[in-house]
């Protein structure tokens, strides 16, 4: 989850209440956020993925003010009704990035700190909620450098423009290949690209969307008015994000005016600042939290989380603030009530036991087999399920049967490409790491092995054991199988077999009821050498699901 570094002085100026360090940290953590570090000048906060409105210092300050009952402004409107500007949206963007919303913001006061925090918020928001700008991207321009009231948003052919912080003009294609943001975010528009999404005024390109703005409309400390755009592939997310930005600029002391987006068949005015209402019965809150509130307490807790609330019949009606993109339904509000109340104050309440507990039959079976193996002097090993073709097959002297293994396509580790199909390679690795330990080495593992057959995965418990000492031979391991079978009263037969991992003539197949369930034998010297094992090894492995013990 993202961590934001916030200038403490700036945050305090937004909260407008004097808080000492301890108090600040305490309030932030009560909101459900984590203070990573608190220094003289900065507070580093680990943010929640769930609340994009808390990605900015402005949003955090707003939430803290509610939490301390210092704010009772629950609604955000606009400062004008008629659109100040309009964006005509060409159908050509439909396949790439169909939606755009704009807003005009006047009377902003920016300094080095607030400008940096604004830009860093925008990046964090587009990276997280905006899914690396694929879903949402924000553009912020100096309004006074825009030459016309009518803008256009369309797909353009490759052209040149002077991008932000560039001294000369570069082509769109060049920027996508060489600019850091072009490289990082280019893929969000490159899919089947037949042109470049561009926002323009009468003079030319304002932005290559969602990559980079123009140098002409660069925002600086001196900027007084802004043009803000939000683009994306979900109309809902675009409009909600715009509403959230609008509330943020209002809280920064600026005035926000609407902009029209003119599509082929419709016209949308943004920011759309309409409150949603969700009503919840008090009983439902009690039945979720186990804490009973009366109307007054419930309303006060709601206010603490920034909801305006009122009692309506048996219900509480919550007004969901415009910037709370994350609230889907009443379940989200109930969580906020729990946060406002404080998890520490929820008293644990026990539940009755109506049904008896039970273990799976594989658990009880495995426990008895483990006891038996330990009783025969075998130490239990636990190994990773993840493996690779060389370990699972090559080192064991066998060819990989086509399509047998569950394989993965995107491992970040060269040593992982599949899940193991058997346990013996893992135990050989254990022996290899035991070379300097006192003999004898008797090891077993009872755990899962995975195979694919006709498009389905079988996940079976296997039992494998190895004996390594200067005199280890086939009969030592056969004696173990004999005891395992006798203790479980299982009749089995063995027949001569060949297996790439074992010495020819020293390998047997184990059958129960005529069905092959495993094998045993003396490991081939080539296999021992590929694991750097210096002493002879005998081993067996059986498929527990075929064994018939329950």
């Amino acid at each position, binding site marked *: 989850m993202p961590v934001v570094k916030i200038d403490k002085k700036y945050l305090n100026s937004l909260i407008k209440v004097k808080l000492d360090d301890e108090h600040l940290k305490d309030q932030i953590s009560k909101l459900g956020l984590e203070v990573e570090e608190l220094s003289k000048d900065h507070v580093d906060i680990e943010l929640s993925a769930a609340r994009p409105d808390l990605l900015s210092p402005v949003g955090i300050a707003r939430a803290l003010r509610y939490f301390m009952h210092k704010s009772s402004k629950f609604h955000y409107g606009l400062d004008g009704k008629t659109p100040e500007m309009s964006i005509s949206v060409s159908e050509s963007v439909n396949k790439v990035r169909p939606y755009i919303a704009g807003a005009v913001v006047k009377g902003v006061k920016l300094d080095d700190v607030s400008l940096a925090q604004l830009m860093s918020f925008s990046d964090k928001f587009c990276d997280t909620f905006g899914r690396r700008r694929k879903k949402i991207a924000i553009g912020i321009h100096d309004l006074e450098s825009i030459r016309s009231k009518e803008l256009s948003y369309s797909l353009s052919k490759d052209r040149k423009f002077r991008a932000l912080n560039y001294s000369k003009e570069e082509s769109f294609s060049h920027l996508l290949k060489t600019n850091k943001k072009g490289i990082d975010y280019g893929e969000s528009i490159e899919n089947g690209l037949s042109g470049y999404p561009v926002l323009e005024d009468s003079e030319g390109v304002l932005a290559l969307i969602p990559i980079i703005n123009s140098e002409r409309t660069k925002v600086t400390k001196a900027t007084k008015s802004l043009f803000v755009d939000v683009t994306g592939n979900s109309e809902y997310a675009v409009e909600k994000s715009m509403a959230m930005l609008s509330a943020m600029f209002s809280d920064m002391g600026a005035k926000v005016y609407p902009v029209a987006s003119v599509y082929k068949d419709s016209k949308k005015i943004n920011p759309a600042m309409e409150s949603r209402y969700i009503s919840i019965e008090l009983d439902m809150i009690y039945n979720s939290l186990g804490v009973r509130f009366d109307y007054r307490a419930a309303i006060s807790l709601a206010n603490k989380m920034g909801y305006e609330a009122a009692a309506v019949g048996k219900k509480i009606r919550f007004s969901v603030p415009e910037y709370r993109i994350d609230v889907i339904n009443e379940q989200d509000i109930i969580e906020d009530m729990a946060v406002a109340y404080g998890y520490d104050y929820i008293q644990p309440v026990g539940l009755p036991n109506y049904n008896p507990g039970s273990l799976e039959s594989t658990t009880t079976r495995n426990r008895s087999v483990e006891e038996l193996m330990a009783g025969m002097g075998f130490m239990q090993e636990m190994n*990773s399920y993840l493996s690779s073709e060389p370990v699972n097959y090559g080192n064991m002297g066998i060819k990989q049967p086509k399509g047998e293994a569950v394989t993965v396509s*995107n491992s*970040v580790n060269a040593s992982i490409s599949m899940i193991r199909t058997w346990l013996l390679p893992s135990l050989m690795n254990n022996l290899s790491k035991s070379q300097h330990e006192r003999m004898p080495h008797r090891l077993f593992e009872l755990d899962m092995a995975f195979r*694919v057959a006709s498009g389905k995965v079988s996940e079976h418990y296997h039992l494998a054991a190895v004996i390594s000492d200067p005199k280890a031979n086939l009969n030592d391991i056969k004696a173990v199988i004999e005891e395992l079978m006798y203790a479980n009263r299982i009749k089995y037969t063995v027949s001569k077999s060949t297996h790439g991992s074992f010495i020819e003539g020293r390998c047997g197949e184990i059958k129960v009821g005529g069905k092959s369930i495993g094998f045993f034998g003396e490991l081939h010297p080539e296999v021992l050498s590929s694991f750097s094992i210096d002493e002879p090894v005998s081993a067996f492995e059986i498929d527990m699901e075929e064994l018939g013990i329950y």
Partner: protein
Amino acid sequence: MHNYEIRILHLLEKAGSADLAELEERSKLGRDQVLWALNGLFGKGFVKLNYNERSKAALTAEGKAYAEKGLPESRLLRRISDSGVKTDSLRSNEERIGLQWLMKKRLASVDNGMVKISSAGISALKNEFPEEQLLKRISGGRHGSVNPSEKELLDSLKKRGLVDIEGVRELEKAEITEDGIRASKSSDEGKDEIGNLDREMLAKMSWKGKRFSEYDLSAKVERNYAAKKHILKQTIDRIKDIYLSMGFQEISGPAVEPAFWVFDSLFMPQDHPARDKQDSFMVNNPKELEIADKEYVRQIKEAHEKSWRYSWDIDKARQSVLRTHTTSVSSRFIHQAVTRILANEDENLKLPIKMFSIGRLFRNENIDYRHLADFYQHDGIIIGKDLTMANLFDTLINIYAKLGIGLKFKPAYFPFVEPGAEFYGYSDVTDEWVELGGSGIMRSEVTGIARNRISVLAWGAGIERVLLMSKRNGIKSIAELYNNGIGFARETKVL
């Protein structure tokens, strides 16, 4: 003189001198007893002891890692060989260690913010570093013996904390002195004393009327290694028994799943960052897996499209993945249980139903000697009417109390629960609260039924971490528990 001392002294009087193996064999005493007797005789001035001294080296965890992948400085040297690298780009701990050593060994220098290779560095590149050769030999060697000529190199590895060196003194030969010969002649071993009792003595009762020679109870003996269950398996079994005692029924489910059960059914939108290919292993054989319940698929599609406003894609849900949490098992079960409850609402099923599962999960992360890509999780669910956060906290507090761990809860976000809570346990190893797992009340979008009819409490938490919470267990990292030689298992504590 003790009987053993007399016996050894007599042997030496005959032989003049002998090594340990000879004395063991002829005296019929154990090695520890012979050594004890020789020490006593040495103290009295009756024997001279000649020792053979050597060093025995063993790799530390860091040493093992370097033996496998090479020293940080040699890896760094290979990287800078052509063009040099910027010092700012060297951020990781290992890169910084590497740079320090390159400077120290004068194999590279820093100039104008760039690390540049020196002429000594270029020639060092031609061969494996001598330290690496030694590390490999120690790691491959059976006893880790080291030649005296390598002492200096070995000391430098020890200073870097890559090897532990133990001086070993072995007795080569014991020789009798003049005083010893005199003492031997004038002493007589108690002829009537019995050493090892045997079958013949018992049968003939020849032990009657004789004295049993005494053992030295302080003699050092070697441990009799026990074969045992793995410490992690012991922990898993303990947790299963705790659930059992609290009326939970054990369930399990597949590790290879269609993304549907791991993500979609748990209300994670298809563009959710946790589904990013970087975090999850994508399976390419079999590439897709079927989702049997068409009606439930329809419900989930509708919930996603209504709440997240996007077009839900069944193909993305069929993609097979290695589960990134065992909550997929809970999710399958909740769906089955809710269907069953709805089918006979005449209270045949007694609520609450309590379930748990324990299994492996997989994360596509870089592995090293501290980090693994698969480990265990336990997952619990309670299905009932009007289940509250107060019930959830009570259940978790009880489970962990039986493991000796106190809990506290904090608000947290998981897409499939609301309200959500993380729980933390107090670790006496780090003296701080450590995150153990996540919990909450399942969203109705997951259960497919309104919360005022059926509610579901759910949680999931790592298992290995339980072992890391207390100093007594002596476990330092999760990865330490897996892929070990027999030595690790012999050294683990039993729970």
